[in-house]
């Protein structure tokens, strides 16, 4: 009786702790976690989620039993002043064997599905219906290439629902890690070796991911988005992107000097900028040096550029790899002072005036 009463009294003292736990659980139940691993929307993420919850089930069981035994012992064996010396037990072979074997059995219950899942996860998807996408990590943005369509884009990956996407990944500079929680988990990307990851999107929608391996000063600002589309919508997007093409001699790799601007075709696209402001922006894009690092063509795009491909930059949700919403003011701010927005980024401050920035924004907006 007194023991129970004491236990209740002690437990009630822990009440604040329970409140904290409650808040935590509530926090965990809320639905607005767009980058969560706990609501998989793709096959690979489901495999990972299944294994995780297998371990969680066993962990909760072990937690309750072992912490329970600990807490019970703490209350049950409280010493009182004047207690005689307790029995001096040095061990018990039988008990010790049992508590060695039982954890081993539990681990086997986790190990078997783990090994199965390891082999599944390491399979490379094959077949005509597989869409191969090349992923290249850069400091601090993502390049995506579709060899099948000869398309290049950056930071926003479009994929068709229901078609397995096989990622062939590498890095331009240092190690990064491609993490797309709702579809695939993560895989590191290296400058000198290819790594693979795959997933199949189940529902259309926007999904977010980001770099998970520390890669330098702006590791925190290296996000990307995946837009999963119905196959027809995806095909429309592909067809549209193909129109963002270079004219024959795509020589964007070499930064043009001023006198070669008019002969260079690097920045020219099939779309003609609408209006004077945009035309002025186009000129600035060539003369201010933007073209040294950025290409405006998606189809047959030049490779090995330092900056992200801008062929459809006007249509993207974010700029600077998830740093800012793609509004006109943000884009202008970014163009004028990238070092303030994302300190350490490789894009230099080019001395663009406010009016010039407006023109450049107008020009880039025509690239949708």
């Amino acid at each position: 009786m007194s023991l129970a009463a004491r236990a209740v009294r002690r437990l009630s003292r822990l009440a604040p702790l329970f409140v904290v736990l409650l808040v935590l659980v509530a926090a965990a139940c809320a639905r607005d976690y767009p980058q969560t691993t706990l609501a998989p929307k793709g096959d690979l993420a489901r495999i990972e989620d299944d294994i995780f919850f297998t371990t969680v089930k066993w962990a909760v069981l072990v937690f309750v039993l072992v912490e329970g035994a600990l807490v019970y012992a703490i209350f049950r064996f409280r010493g009182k002043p004047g207690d005689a010396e307790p029995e001096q037990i040095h061990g018990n072979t039988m008990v010790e064997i049992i508590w060695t074997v039982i954890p081993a059995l539990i681990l086997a219950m986790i190990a078997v599905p783990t090994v199965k899942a390891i082999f599944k996860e390491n399979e490379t998807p094959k077949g005509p219906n597989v869409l191969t996408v090349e992923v290249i990590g850069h400091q601090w943005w993502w390049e995506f290439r579709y060899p099948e369509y000869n398309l290049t884009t950056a930071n926003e990956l479009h994929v068709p629902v229901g078609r397995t996407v096989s990622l062939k990944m590498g890095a331009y500079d240092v190690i990064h890690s491609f993490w797309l929680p709702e579809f695939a988990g993560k895989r590191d990307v290296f400058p000198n070796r290819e790594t693979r990851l795959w997933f199949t999107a189940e529902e259309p929608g926007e999904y977010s991911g980001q770099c998970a391996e520390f890669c330098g000063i702006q590791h925190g600002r290296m996000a990307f988005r995946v837009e999963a589309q119905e196959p027809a919508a995806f095909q429309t997007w592909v067809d549209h992107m193909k129109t963002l093409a270079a004219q024959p001699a795509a020589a964007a790799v070499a930064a043009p000097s001023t006198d070669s601007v008019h002969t260079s075709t690097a920045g020219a696209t099939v779309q003609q900028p609408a209006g004077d402001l945009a035309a002025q922006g186009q000129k600035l894009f060539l003369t201010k040096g933007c073209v040294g690092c950025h290409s405006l063509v998606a189809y047959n795009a030049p490779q090995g550029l330092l900056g992200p491909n801008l062929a459809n930059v006007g249509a993207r949700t974010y700029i600077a790899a998830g740093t800012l919403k793609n509004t006109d003011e943000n884009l202008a701010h970014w163009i004028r002072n990238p070092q303030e927005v994302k300190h350490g980024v490789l894009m230099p401050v080019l001395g663009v005036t406010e009016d010039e920035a407006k023109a450049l924004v107008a020009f880039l907006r025509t690239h949708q």
Partner: protein
Amino acid sequence: MATTVLGQDAHVAAGHGEKTGLWSWITTVDHKRIGILYGATAFLFFLLGGLEAEVIRLQLAKPDNKLVTPEFYNQLFTMHGTTMIFLGVMPLSAMFFNYLIPLMIGARDVAFPRLNAFSYWVFLLGGLFLNSSFLFGAAPNAGWFGYANLTSKQFSPGLNVDFWLMGLQILGVASLAAAVNFFVTIINLRAPGMKLMRMPMFVWMSFITQVLLLLAFPVITVALIMLMFDRLFGTHFFVPAGGGDPILWQHLFWIFGHPEVYILILPAFGIISEVLPVFSRKPLFGYAAMVFSGAFIAFLGFGVWSHHMFSTGMGPIADTFFSLATMLIAIPTGVKIFNWIGTIWGGSLQFKTPMLFALGFIAMFIIGGLSGVMHASPPADLQQTDTYFVVAHFHYVLFGGSIFGLTSGAYYWWPKMSGKMLDEKLGKLHFWLMLIGFNLTFFPMHFVGLHGMPRRVYTYPKGLGFELLNQMETVGALILAVSFLVFLVNIYRTMKSGAKAPADPWNGATLEWSIPSPPQEWNFAEQPVVHGRDPLWEAKRERGGPLPEPPLVSGKGIHLPAPSFWPLVAAVGVTLIFVGFMLLPKVGPWGLVIGISTLFFGVYNWLFEPSYTSIPGVKGKSSSH
């Protein structure tokens, strides 16, 4: 260690225990004083690492926060990790090794007292060197794991990585020298009758830790030298452009890095294995199983390094091997936890502060262990690695484990080291604040990680749902800071006006409680003889009650190693060598020449100095300088 009687003059010999002043600390070779130096220094570094963590928490308290720059944030998390591991937890463990191993095995000092002083000075100078980088605005910024090829000259041109690289090499010298010392001490200097299987569990776990240090540190040393060559002399071990492979760094680093985890936790295992029996009034349950499980953990610790690399895509065979090997570690770890619960089971528990921290250790370590099993499974780890879930996991192991264990040990042995009792009320307040603050800081990290927050990001955008959890963590971190303030207040108040500690305040079982608090310089006036595992309990049982307070003896004729400042000179030399390497591109070989000369000068004088105090009047020449 010879204990032949040379001294004739009781006053001179007795004077050993009364030496004070800065010079006596600089030249000390007494393992207890060196232990205190280790403890005080490491605690200051620990507070510094804690301060770095508080700034990190403040920066992450809200989305898109601009409290610190991205560059400074990266320096903070790099230095937080590096400091806590190499300048906090490891040297705090070294404090206990130093102070307690000789006392627990009934020895007069460690095997190589001057080498011991050397280890401390190298550690101190290495720590100062590493932190001096802040003064140049060039604190290390590539993470405590320093992954290649981000650390290459091309991507990290500044001195930041050099400070880290040289600092760790300096600290490695300290760790290796200390490991050799304690290894030899435990093997050779045990009191008569103290067989290996009679050693206190703390000594056993310390012994295993030294083996880990001796085997793991050479690997990181090799990796650091390769990186140093890459950065200084243009080699390409880790530079892909030159045919090197950055993943080689990861293998080398984690072959060191995983055993390092056990280097950080095994001493805490040992500490609570001493505390739990004493405050349960019952011997440790399953002594032999505890020894073998510790050894087994250490052995397996060298075969699991690649579980830090599941996301690199090693292929199914390697994933399977490292996954199963990692899961195996849960078995001996479980055995330890069950044996600790078995120890308190049926006991008569005394809830003194050290006991609270030891019980807190078990409760928290279980959580860390269970989340560890979760990412031992590579498919699950593909989501968890490099997220806050992992940050939560290893803080449950290293804070909930190591720090709770070390704090338990600090409260337990404080009376022995200082001669003063700490205040129990403040101690309990410290415990509850720390328990609550700790869980509030680190438990939400599990969720924020699973919900998609990666590690080592200086900020996060709005709208990903990270705000509330991060705010809770920040509040928790502030509570943790308060808990350590309470500890400091406790230390300050009891040092000024606390109760004097008797020799055996807790009814201890091990030899250190048989001598005065604090012990006299020579530890044991008479060589103790050991007849069982809990020698002091047996002595008390035989006597049928507590032992009388041990008398302060004169120390007449007791022969001790002489103070020396050559270890400090040699340590300065070691530090200068690495500073010289760092400055090689700037000042040429002169830094190196000075460093090597200083080391040579120090070691030369060390070699030819008499190693024992010569008593004036006997030899007519004093070796003190």
